[in-house]
């Protein structure tokens, strides 16, 4: 583990005495950078992070009863946790009217499933009457997939036979207001951030449906590409937050740090399984521990 590697390193370099020297910190920071890269944190973010740690660590007075390694690991942990942001409170609602939530992301990240999970969460935790909107008209049986989820939750699903996503979503929001659904969740088709026409389509959905919240649904096992794709979605749409899925696997999840650094957006929820109740609030200190290994 990283802590073990750092312990070995510090005892070799400093014999445990005095301040954290520039040389010992330099080597320790290299270990941390390596651990972050192995955890899929982006190269740039790993660099920025380790530079910040180096600055905080060098010259720090040795503490009573704490080894250099322990002290250094604490600095790293605290810095990582601070970056991941504070505890999330989930979704904040403006009490009046219909809240529209738009779900976006790359292909296969877990959007449709997460739409179902969010509907259940909103009903259970916030006593909302959600409506699901099937705005993916291109993937075979995507509408059917959302209808099956809606049926299992007894949540209404707005879908249309023809039409394009922007108008479908706008009509769904009108319909929601009429029938008293106070949260509308828009399931959009997965797409590449470099697909200009499809990114424009998302921008059009945003213009027509006017969502209060835009969530990026991202796969926890994403590697270096997390920076590119999340930056593009953020630039195009202005994200409110991120939902990190498939955290029930053993991916270290460094993408969480990369996305946070690059977009400034908080991770709000995490997906921890395929069932519709497998949605948790994001816990920054748990994520920090997972990334550092």
């Amino acid at each position, binding site marked *: 583990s990283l802590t073990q590697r750092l312990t070995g390193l510090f005892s070799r370099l400093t014999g445990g005495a005095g301040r954290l020297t520039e040389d010992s910190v330099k080597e320790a920071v290299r270990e941390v950078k390596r651990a972050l890269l192995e955890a899929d944190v982006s190269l740039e973010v790993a660099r920025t992070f380790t530079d910040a740690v180096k600055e905080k660590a060098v010259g720090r007075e040795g503490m009573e009863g704490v080894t250099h390694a322990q002290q250094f690991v604490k600095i790293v942990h605290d810095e990582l946790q601070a970056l991941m942001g504070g505890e999330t409170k989930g979704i904040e609602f403006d009490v009046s009217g219909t809240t529209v939530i738009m779900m976006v992301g790359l*292909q296969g990240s877990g959007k449709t499933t997460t739409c179902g999970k969010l509907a259940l969460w909103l009903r259970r935790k916030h006593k909302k009457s959600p409506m699901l909107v099937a705005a993916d008209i291109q993937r075979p*049986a995507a509408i*059917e*997939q959302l209808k*099956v*989820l809606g049926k299992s939750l007894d949540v209404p699903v707005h879908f249309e036979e023809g039409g394009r996503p922007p108008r479908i979503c706008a009509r769904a929001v009108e319909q929601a207001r009429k029938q008293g659904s106070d949260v509308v969740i828009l399931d959009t088709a997965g797409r590449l951030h470099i697909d200009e026409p499809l990114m424009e389509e998302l921008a059009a959905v945003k213009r027509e449906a006017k969502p209060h919240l835009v969530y990026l649904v991202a796969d926890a096992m994403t*590697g270096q*590409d997390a920076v590119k794709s999340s930056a593009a979605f953020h630039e195009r749409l202005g994200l409110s937050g991120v939902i990190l899925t498939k955290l029930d696997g*053993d991916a270290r999840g460094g993408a969480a740090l990369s996305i946070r650094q690059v977009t400034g957006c908080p991770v709000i929820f995490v997906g921890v399984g395929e069932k519709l109740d497998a949605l948790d609030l994001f816990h920054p200190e748990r994520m920090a521990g997972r990334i550092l290994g």
Partner: protein
Amino acid sequence: IVKGRKLDEELLEEIEETLLRADVGVATSARLIDELREAGKRGEVREGEQVLPFLKSHLAERLAAGRIVFAPEKPTVILIVGVNGSGKTTSIAKLAGWLRERGKTVVLGAGDTFRAAAVEQLTIWSKRLGIEIVKQDTGADPAAVAFDAADAAVSRGADVLIVDTAGRLHTQEHLMRELEKIRRVLGKRIPGAPHETLLVLDATTGQNAVQQARRFHEATPVTGIILAKLDGTARGGAVLSIKDELDLPVKFVGVGEKLPDIEVFDPVAYVEALFS
């Protein structure tokens, strides 16, 4: 980036960054850079101009492509596995189309009996392809569907049977055992089946891809990889570590969401794209 430069530590660092950004991983990138440095010391690579060609051919050799190996007696059974959302079902449709273009008759087995509308999704593809699909309702035993599909493929005299499975994380023990069971059942009905077990990896996945390959390979000996979503900006560099460690070759790449968007793996083109 390399004109008129010598093979020095600065250049090596730049190349290492390119590899890391492509998800090649820390250890594998470091080893490749060491090999490059050694080649420099031996005089095999002197000028900066020689570096990229050397590295590219070195990498392309390591990534030697795999091809589908057809069984001596039809049907050849291909089992498709991988984690959730990696691109299995779509890759099956594309692979079926690719095989049909080469004169093979294909039957599909709707082995994902778990996820909402999974059977419907593959059924739509089978209709678009005009090929037969063997399926049961969602909730059925996937091994039973696999058995039925194998049976149907034999009695139809089909050349190839492709069996879809539900996405599963390699950390889910009971689901990995389910996969072993599907494989055993296929082998019982058709000796030697599955003749190919292709792991579908999402090119955007980082180092976890290596762990996925290890665990899936333990459960059902994988014979090749389909690297999907290579039309994005991710390069799926984990396939280098996977080839080094497990000797699993990439056989196909997915380059889009439509039927024609599948290509036989070309290591030279792949490595070119890594450094472009």
